[in-house]
């Protein structure tokens, strides 16, 4: 009986959620507009794995007296907002992620990956891999009755499952630190914790792996940059930074550390094969443009050929994707970590990719190197302290950070590597004190094929290639580069 009830609940949500977020519960509606048979999505919950606490769903935060109110408004800038839920529902892209997973495109992806066959989910672990990032929980039905967790990336995705603190967190006796430690609350005030929360999905983690199979099936590749994403993010909190440039630079650094750590975690789980759907060596650990370059003609992106990179020791091998691991090199030069071990790790990953070695002998040394680099970043495994790291980053002099960005930019502007140049562009953008003439920066962006709609790079052609080409032809990468460096100051 309860199973039947659950089925009809789920049915309602699958139909209603894409259209509105009202979460109505008059569950008699039946429709065939759903992309697949809804029964197939219902399965018995498994062990909750890494989530020892239960999530209760975004609606449980949405009472008008709690986080579903009209908001404190600009007149009382110090007040807690109170309008987080409506803001999330209306403007936060995370609220759309369940809809995205149910869209025609996603269903096609699920079919190509044979997760969905003849309207039924036939590969549950792989489907849960999708849910891990597209929904608050990996189980659509947690307690056998309530289906309300098909909500997209809700409050508890980032703030932690609220089972043990929802009913107490507004009371005077509530201890934040104790809840963080013991009850699953996430310390989202800490910048590094927040960044790690983002990278858990936007890079990947021990229980979620967005790999090349999924990209080839149609999912966009992940190009996360904490600072730029946060700038564009509709915030449901207030920010009062004394120095916005300093804050933006800090975020650039913190984002790098978070990305690197998540990538190392992901690598670790790929090599250990903790997911049934992970592969090793994994193509998405390598630069897309290493392989995806045209062999018969010139392409619009002239910066894409990694084999032109003078640092490369080998040809015809895929270059390691540094998008997320860049933080290792940055922290090596900032904090004097062992640079050699970073180089060794990158070299071993490159060799593994070209030899596609799967033997124990190929994997073990890489795992050891990963362990070492994580210890560099965050201290001994037993006492990882993100807060300590944040303190180190925040107290690092601004001028030194600028110098680092400048050096990075100079190196990148001389190389022909797309990824290096794009990363340098993002670093530059985070550290530039709003230049009067943004044109050189815009041109850089066009060269790197960043679509206008988002700050993260993609591989789309610009809308008007001829115009872009003409604009680019009248300015060289070098001359624009020196203009930007000038605006960075001495």
């Amino acid at each position, binding site marked *: 009986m309860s199973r039947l009830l659950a089925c009809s609940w789920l049915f309602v949500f699958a139909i209603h959620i894409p259209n509105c977020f009202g979460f109505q519960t008059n569950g008699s509606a039946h429709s065939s507009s759903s992309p697949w048979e809804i029964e197939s999505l219902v399965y018995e919950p498994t062990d909750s794995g890494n989530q020892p606490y239960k999530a209760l769903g975004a609606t449980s935060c949405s009472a008008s007296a709690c986080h579903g109110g009209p908001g404190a408004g600009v007149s009382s800038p110090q007040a807690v907002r109170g309008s987080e839920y409506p803001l999330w529902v209306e403007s936060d892209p995370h609220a759309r992620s369940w809809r995205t997973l149910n869209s025609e495109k996603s269903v096609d992806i699920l079919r190509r990956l044979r997760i969905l066959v003849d309207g039924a989910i036939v590969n549950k672990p792989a489907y849960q891999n999708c849910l891990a990032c597209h929904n608050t929980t990996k189980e659509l039905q947690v307690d056998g009755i309530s289906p309300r967790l098909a909500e997209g990336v809700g409050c508890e995705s980032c703030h932690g499952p609220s089972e043990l603190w929802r009913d107490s967190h507004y009371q005077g006796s509530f201890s934040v630190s104790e809840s963080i430690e013991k009850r699953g609350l996430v310390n989202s005030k800490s910048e590094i914790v927040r960044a790690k929360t983002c990278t858990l999905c936007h890079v990947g983690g021990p229980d979620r792996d967005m790999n090349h199979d999924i990209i080839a099936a149609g999912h966009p590749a992940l190009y996360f940059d904490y600072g730029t994403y946060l700038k564009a993010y509709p915030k449901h909190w207030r920010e009062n930074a004394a120095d916005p440039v300093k804050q933006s630079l800090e975020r650039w650094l913190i984002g790098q550390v978070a990305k690197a750590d998540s990538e190392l975690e992901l690598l670790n789980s790929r090599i250990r094969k903790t997911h049934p759907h992970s592969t*090793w060596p994994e193509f998405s650990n390598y630069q897309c443009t290493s392989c995806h370059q045209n062999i018969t003609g010139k392409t619009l992106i002239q910066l894409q050929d990694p*084999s032109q990179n003078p640092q490369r*020791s*080998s040809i*015809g091998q895929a270059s390691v994707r540094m998008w997320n691991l860049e933080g290792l090199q940055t922290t090596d030069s900032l904090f004097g970590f062992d640079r050699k071990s970073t180089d060794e790790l990158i070299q071993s990953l490159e060799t593994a990719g*070209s030899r596609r070695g799967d033997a124990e002998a190929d994997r073990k040394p890489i795992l050891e190197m990963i362990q070492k680099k994580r210890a560099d970043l965050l201290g001994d495994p037993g006492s990882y302290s993100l807060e300590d790291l944040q303190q180190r980053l925040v107290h690092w002099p601004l001028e030194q950070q600028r110098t680092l960005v400048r050096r990075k930019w100079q190196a990148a502007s001389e190389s022909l590597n797309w990824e290096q140049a794009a990363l340098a562009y993002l670093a530059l953008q985070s550290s530039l004190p709003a230049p009067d003439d943004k044109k050189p920066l815009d041109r850089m962006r066009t060269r790197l094929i960043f679509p206008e709609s988002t700050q993260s790079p993609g591989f789309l052609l610009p809308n008007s290639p001829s115009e872009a080409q003409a604009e680019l032809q009248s300015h060289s990468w070098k001359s624009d580069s020196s203009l930007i460096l000038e605006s960075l100051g001495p």
Partner: protein
Amino acid sequence: MTQIIRRHIPTQPLLCFVALAWTICTNQVWGFQPPEKPPLNSASTRSTFDLTCVICHSNPQPITSNNPIGLSQARVYLGEESDVATQDRRSDIHAQAIHKVWQQDGHLTNEFKIILRKLKNQNAIGLNHSWASIDPEKINDKDADPVFLKNCLTCHAGIQADSQKSPMALGRPWEEFAADRSAVSNGSIGCEACHGRGSEYLTKHLSPNWLTKSPLQKQAEGFRDLENSAVSAQVCLSCHLGSPSESKIITHEMYAAGHPPLPPFDLAKFLDETCKKHWIDLTTKSASLAKTPARPNDPSVEYLRKHFESPLDNPLEKLNSEIQGHFRKTQQSRVGQVMASLMSQDLMLFNAESQNLHGDYGVYDCVGCHQTLYKQIRGSYSIKGRVPGRPLGLMWTRPAKSNLVTSALDPLATFQQLLDDVLNKTPFGSPADLQKVFSEFAQQRASAKDQLIEFANKPLNQQQADAWLFEYLKERQGLMGNEWVAKQVFWTLENYFDDLERVTENHSQSDSRNEIYKSRFAALAKTAPEISLIVSCGPAKLPSDEPVDYAQFYKHLQQFVEELVTSQAGSASQTPAQ
């Protein structure tokens, strides 16, 4: 000079010269007039290039359509005689291949040096030794590094990788090549690189019953009978695709260092569009022979029979008429495709067995990965059961079921399916799993090539050709997103329509449906991008500076194929197979 001759004819000098004299003086075999000048003169004034062969085959007697089996092959090959069809006086592109490696002074070309310099510091993934010993600055035509010899000269100069171990191998030993100055200046891929080592078969080659031997018999004696399409496909593909047993391998590293990609191979296209043909095809030979009055027990008629399976009591006229109705190019194209499948599997096995080779991307389809991330995707294809984004072997060499022409080849479809599964399963293409699949099919694979050689002598009439083309296109029609598959389908269609035109002209038959598709295909062919041309003389010439819309062309080709398949299915249902 005498020394050179001795080296070339080490064991049977007397026998050879007797046979030679007999051949020249009587010229019984094909009934031609003796040459005007003694052939040795022309050979000595020019070169010692594949000397043994040149003694006879540089006869000034030209090859013409009236005189199809002349003895001037070496002269045509080297550009001293004009080509039969095109009157082109340049040499065969294979004779020039050496200039890609060496300059006239015997030192490496800059182009080659750059590639070798890049390779020098590599891990040599794909090979069982390293590139480190190579010194591009020191290599010359007298002093080639063994690594360079094994990996470059096997194809670029027709050198045997290991002459001691494989006397039957194609090509000649390095020492012989290096001692021969003229090899460098006059020609590289010599007669023996394609026809086999002369010292093995010379005596037998000169005997009167040589023409009546079957291609397989000749192969056992060390000679490659290139009239047989399976044999010629195997010989061409040994370089144009790769042949691990002859150390003719190209790895991804070599491509990345600058070696151009090897395009798909179509036997009929490659043979017919070679700019300097030193041979006459079977159809022309037969027509020419039919014009002359037949002599009793004429070995040349027997030759035709050996290369075109036909009842022994078939009179020459009937035999010739059958040969004229034979879809030669279509059959060549088909046989070449099967051989390519078999040989690409050899490469895959070599990859799996080689300790340092596993991981070489050279055995996979280039466009599988080398598609840009723009909207225009040129490598997309779908194979049943495949997870997107995982490697597959070469798409253009995938066996089509319709091509599995003899019972020995039947299991290859299952075999391919198992290979696909291993490549699709992580870790992609695990060597152990690949080896397991190969060992299961070792027996079938061992006999497959010989079976194909026997099959290649079979005639293909219009009805059979139509039926095959229909099945073949049905199998390939979903794969036109792959540039190379599309290219091969286009070539196959070209061959088919060429045959159709020739055969229907001869037989003055006409079929309205065929006529429609023939003219529609001709219109489509006019829009084909330059990559569909085989340019064997000099560099490819772009038809225009405008960028070619490949995707558009392949789309049209796809439409054409679909319509042809549908119309054929329609006509087949109206007139059931007889």
